[in-house]
């Protein structure tokens, strides 16, 4: 399969009749054979973008290229793409066999070839014993596999997935996630996958495009997104439990936080010098129980009262409430709304080693890794300490948009 099936979106815009911009000037280049994730909270335009690729939604502006063909005005059936819908959209009046064979029958493929291809697909997906059943009699996971079978039997130029795992329970979701990765690697087919789940985004994608309110925020590998988020939104969206945001001021090489001062590397402090009140972003795992941590280099310790402790065996989550100044609190609430979250207590979530003996209500000594502290401009949301060489692509308009919404919030 040496077909060139890169999908190149250039300045794609989707404007609805009422002037609402569902997708605003998004450019994403999906390489041939690449697994691209579109991720964001609900209403960020990721599904709309996917439906514009497949042709179910008209494109208001920009160019949609598949291979070297402009497909803006092509009907879905002329684009040769396969799609797995969120609710599977299986044909309930047809057997599993006929469901998988449906695209081939439409293409008038000879019966013998249909049979061979359907049986190939059903073997890959372990559907052999269900071929004569109707979708109504299958479990969620089996329906999911039938939907995948209908997609792979086509030999389409690319796969498109619209939140395919969101209807499965947690255990099955994990299994199917691995299956999808395995299948995609084996077939080597260009894939665009829409999800609102950051775990799926991190584990499945070669690259991840993070969208917020129709605007592309950052397009990078999962590692780049995690280590070098371009703004508060990306930082808060990627990672679970999410990154902690604390009010901070920089004085020399130290960052003053509600709990105490943390030493940060000089090059980081320099980038944030003289900017007044900032937001410090620290991931939960960059904290540790000071009594467990042996090498305390590169960080500082502070004491704080732990409110709640969740022991998970391999690690412990500890929650430390704090009071945030009003201007930061407003920003945090806005961010939480953007992330589809519930009202956020201003609290610190720290992930400690499983051997930590800290108990709820205790005044604990916590170590924090200063080298991993990120500093954000609370007005624009921009990450001041971002390492641009390792942050993928950050569209310029994306940060402007963030600045506007930040100022509005």
């Amino acid at each position, binding site marked *: 399969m040496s077909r060139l099936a890169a999908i190149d979106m250039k300045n794609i815009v989707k404007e609805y009749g009422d002037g609402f911009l569902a997708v605003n000037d998004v450019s994403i280049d999906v390489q041939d054979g690449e697994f691209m994730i579109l991720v964001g909270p609900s209403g960020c335009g990721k599904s709309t973008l996917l439906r514009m690729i*497949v*042709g*179910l939604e008209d494109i208001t502006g920009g160019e949609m290229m598949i291979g070297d063909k402009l497909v803006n005005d092509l*009907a*879905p*059936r002329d684009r040769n*793409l*396969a*799609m797995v*819908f969120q*609710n*599977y*959209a*299986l*044909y*309930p*009046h047809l057997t599993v066999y006929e469901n998988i064979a*449906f*695209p081939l029958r*439409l*293409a008038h493929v000879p019966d013998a070839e249909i049979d061979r291809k359907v049986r190939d697909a059903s073997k890959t997906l372990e559907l052999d014993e269900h071929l004569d059943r*109707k*979708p*109504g*009699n*299958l479990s*969620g996971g089996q*329906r999911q596999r039938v939907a995948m079978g*209908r997609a792979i039997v*086509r030999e389409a130029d690319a796969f498109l997935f619209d939140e395919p795992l969101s*209807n499965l329970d947690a255990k099955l979701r994990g299994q199917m996630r691995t299956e999808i990765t395995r299948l995609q690697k084996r077939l080597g087919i260009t894939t665009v996958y829409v999800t609102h789940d950051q775990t799926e985004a991190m584990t499945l994608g070669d690259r991840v495009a993070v969208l917020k309110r129709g605007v592309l925020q950052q397009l990078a590998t999962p590692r780049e997104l995690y280590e070098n988020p371009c703004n508060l939104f990306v930082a808060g969206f990627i990672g679970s439990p999410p990154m902690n945001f604390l009010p901070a001021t920089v004085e020399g090489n130290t960052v003053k936080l509600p709990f105490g001062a943390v030493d940060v590397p000089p090059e980081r402090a320099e980038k944030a010098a003289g900017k007044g009140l900032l937001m410090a972003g620290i991931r939960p795992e960059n904290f540790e129980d000071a009594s467990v941590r042996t090498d305390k280099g590169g960080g500082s310790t502070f004491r704080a009262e732990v409110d709640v402790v969740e022991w998970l065996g391999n690690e412990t989550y500890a929650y430390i409430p704090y009071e945030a100044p009003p201007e930061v609190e407003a920003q945090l609430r806005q961010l939480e709304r953007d992330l589809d979250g519930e009202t956020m207590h201003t609290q610190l979530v720290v992930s400690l080693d499983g051997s930590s003996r800290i108990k709820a209500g205790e005044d604990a000594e916590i170590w924090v890794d200063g080298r991993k502290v990120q500093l954000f401009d609370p007005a624009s949301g921009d990450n001041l300490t971002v390492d641009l060489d390792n942050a993928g692509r950050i569209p310029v308009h994306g940060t402007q948009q963030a600045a506007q919404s930040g100022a509005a919030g």
Partner: protein
Amino acid sequence: MGETRAKIGTWLGFLLILVWCLLPVVWIISLSFKGPTETAAGSPQFLPKEPTLQNYSDIIDNPDFKDSLINSFGIAAISTFLSVILATLAAYAIARLDFKGKRLVLSIALAIAMFPVVALVGPLFDLWRTLGLFNTWPGLIIPYMSFTLPLAIWTLSAFFREIPWEMEQAAQVDGATSWQAFRKVIVPLAAPGVFTAAILTFFFAWNEFVLALSLTSTTQARTVPAQLSFFVGPDPFNPPYGQLATASVVVTVPIIVIVLLFQRKIVAGLTSGAVKG
């Protein structure tokens, strides 16, 4: 204790309703096996004393009845077929497309369904005679269609709205044209709705009396319900009850057969399993 009482009560209720509904039917069937002497008797007993098939052989040999039976079948079948096809297309457009005047179309359709048939008999009679449609099959098929279309459209558009739009989009992504998606996915899924609409239309056309009587003059187009009113026999004081009852039985049987056939098709939840459970 209370449970058995409730059970007995339920069965008593069933029995009451069954007797209430079926007694006239059984009475007609019983009548159809009675000879003329028995039906003419002052107080005829419920079951025939000497069961006879004479009425059946008479009615089958009656050319007027045979002709009107053919008319009934032909007219009802053609009106049903055309009405369901038109209604399917119209209902699909109403369920799926956003066009100006959609509500207007639906309201007008409903208004037509409310129109009293009797009020139309006079004008139609004049119109049909001028147009040469009087006493012809189309002369009955056209009004039957216009009276059954609204109900069929309403029923079907409700069914189409229930079908997830993803079905159609999936078919289009799979390589189907809009027409193929409609024919291969949407219509099979709407089958219960299509059958419901077909049955309603067929019943209306099969049972209709006023138009069938007024817009026909001979057995060239007269249907069975109208033709039955001409079964008066030689003696006006002694109508052929046995014959009438037999004719009623003969026209009721096809309806029962059709209902039983289609009943299997009208299975709710045909779409279950299309999308997540």
